[in-house]
């Protein structure tokens, strides 16, 4: 556990550094806040409709599939570290696991979940 303490320290240091940079520039960067500065950027004209409408569901699919494959990868890491000890048996066990997931992956592919247009 003590191995992780330096990471925590670095995290704190990074936050302090980032905060200091932002604070310094806010202090020095003297905003004038003219009307044009403050309008939302939309290529030099007023927006036709406000941002913030529903967006395409495709991104949701990506996030969903990402979770599932991320979990798959999470199972692969401990397996990878002891693979040498497990030997061919380990390969078989993982092959079953990945095989099942690949079927799911192919299903997604065939159903067009990975298509964008």
């Amino acid at each position, binding site marked *: 556990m003590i*191995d992780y303490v330096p*990471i925590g320290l670095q995290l704190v*240091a990074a936050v302090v*550094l980032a905060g200091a940079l932002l604070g310094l*520039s*806010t202090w020095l960067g003297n905003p004038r806040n003219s009307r044009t*500065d403050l309008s939302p950027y939309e290529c030099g004209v007023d927006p036709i409709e406000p941002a913030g409408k529903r967006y395409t569901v495709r991104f949701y699919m990506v996030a969903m599939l990402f979770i599932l494959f*991320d979990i798959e990868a999470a199972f692969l*890491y401990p397996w990878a570290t002891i693979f040498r000890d497990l030997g061919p048996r380990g390969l078989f066990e993982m092959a079953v696991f990945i095989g099942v997931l690949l079927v799911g992956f192919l299903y997604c592919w065939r159903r067009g979940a990975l*298509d964008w247009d």
Partner: protein
Amino acid sequence: MDPDIARVLVESAVKIALFFFILLTVVAYMTLVERRVSAWIQDRQGPNRVGPLGLLQPLADGIKFLFKEEVTPPHVYRPVYLLAPMLIFVPALVTFSVIPIGPALELFGQRVRLQIADVDNGVLVILAFASMGVYGIALAGWSSSNKYSLMGALRSSAQLISYELAMGLSIVGVLMAAGSLRLNDIVQHQIEHGWNLIWQLPGFLIFLTAAFAETNRLPFDLPEAETELVAGYHTEYSGMRFSMFYMAEYANMVTASALAVTLYCGGYHVPGLHLLRLPEPAAALVQVLAFGLKVGFFLFLYVWVRWTLPRFRYDQLMNLGWKVLLPVAVLHILWVSFLVLMNWT
């Protein structure tokens, strides 16, 4: 106070301070390198006025960014808008902490590792921090209440997570070979059995591609894609907040290059160095320099590719990630298991 803890604290404090100095300097000079190399590629001069050879340009840029007007538009959702640059900058600074830049050596009577944290799950710590980067981008785009920002943020987040998968799977091969998640073990394994680059070329290529995509560099720079989305998720940012996104990008490039070196190119390993029988500090110095050179090569590659290739279209990018890299990464795992079973690596 427990002397053990005190030692760890002092040692890490010194290392962190040193590391931040080095990393921020490298990041600053990468911007200069980028501009000079791009100028060289494009048959022009590049910045050469501030200081000799333009060497003070990054300093001038830094000062400029500090004094730039910080615009906080009224239509943004303030708390999240202000938090987003931090969320992207902080993980970028922390990710490097587990990467060893040289062997352990005797210093002031202590065994000092040239690495901030030598942890058991080093590879995963990097992936964990890398996976945090997506929030900065997503929240920056969302809180800006701007259509270009939102589109850029969604594109970028989806891209990041897609290539995170490919990257995560490509690394598995390295873990299998080394039998450990500790980066030092991985380097040690390569010192003993040869660089992973040799046996795991497909994995390396997937990793490299994913690393380009994870750092939003051409040909995968769609999140910004200035000719399409103006500036993508950071359209509404200015001044230091804007430059933080860029510093994070360059810091991530450095980390990704260092990771590529550590996982595939033997880390700080210099083949045949032991034959020279150098004293330990000298050998360590050579190895640290070798590490720096290898990282430098990858950084140059980043710049080189950026100024050579056009940009992918969004669907092509996603197809590459999901329909090519992902299946190939799985096949690569099979290939490495074969290697390991045959005891070839």
